[in-house]
């Protein structure tokens, strides 16, 4: 019983990508669509969802994907570090909370499955 409860709690934690305390209506949620549009354009224009680019990455024939992922991680990590260091608040005035990623064996098995599928389809799930 307690095991099941614990499991439920941990999956609940995993699901949360939203740490805002205020509720947003559908109109407010449109701002995420705008960020998404920019993101979608980048994915296509930088050929990140190209099967050929993924093949080149795993055959070490091109630096492109390593450059994209590397730059993205560095820019994101610097931003997160700055937000934490200067305790930058959200535009709604809340403290920024970032959900931690708990370790599960799925990180390994699921990760390997994802990698196999990624190289077959040339796409992440979007």
């Amino acid at each position, binding site marked *: 019983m307690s095991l099941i409860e614990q499991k439920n709690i941990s999956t609940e934690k995993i699901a949360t990508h939203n740490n805002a305390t205020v509720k947003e209506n559908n109109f407010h949620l449109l701002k995420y669509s705008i960020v998404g549009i920019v993101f979608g354009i980048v994915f296509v224009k930088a050929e990140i969802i190209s099967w050929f680019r993924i093949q080149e990455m795993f055959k070490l024939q091109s630096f492109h994907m390593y450059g994209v992922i590397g*730059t993205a991680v560095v*820019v994101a990590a610097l931003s997160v570090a700055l*937000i934490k260091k200067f305790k930058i608040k959200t535009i709604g005035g809340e403290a920024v909370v970032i959900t931690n990623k708990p370790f599960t064996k799925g990180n390994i098995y699921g990760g390997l499955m994802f990698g196999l*599928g990624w190289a077959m389809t040339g796409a992440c799930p979007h």
Partner: protein
Amino acid sequence: MQHLVSIISAPWPWYIAGALIGLTVPTLLLIGNKTFGISSNLRHLCAACFPSNISFFKYDWKKEAWNLFFVGGIIVGAFMATYLLANPQPIIIHPSLQADLTQLGITDFNHLLPNELFSFKALFTLRGFILMVVGGFLVGFGTRYANGCTSGHSIMGLSNLQWPSLVATICFMLGGFIMTNFILPFILQLK
């Protein structure tokens, strides 16, 4: 103006794309305390459409509705880029990859994906079925089992110094290297 259009429609360099993707992380955090991720939407859609009695789907998916809006935007953006900002040139491919693929009868280098492998017609060939259906299953199931994809783990997780995300990222890459170099050559020979 003509010059600007040709710059935008040519493939974007890695540093521009990488910087824009990286900036998505603080943007989402600052406009609404949202942790960047994409693949969770597979779960939200299932939880919203067929919750049944599965504990994995019992959670407040409405709280994650922002993520569906985000992905809706990605799809719109991808269509815009494909139809309005299309690159008129064929995709540039490493010569030895092109030679390998040509030998296997794959000669469509005009799109992001080769038409011979990924099309409705190819779905009814063994090769196309394995790549699209089995590959799609591995991506979809794998990403939920791993609790994140390249976005949630490799970019959000790594930038927040989460070691489980590093484990997941190493496994993504390992799986990809194994598939591309040791398994895919056999799959591509199937008809």
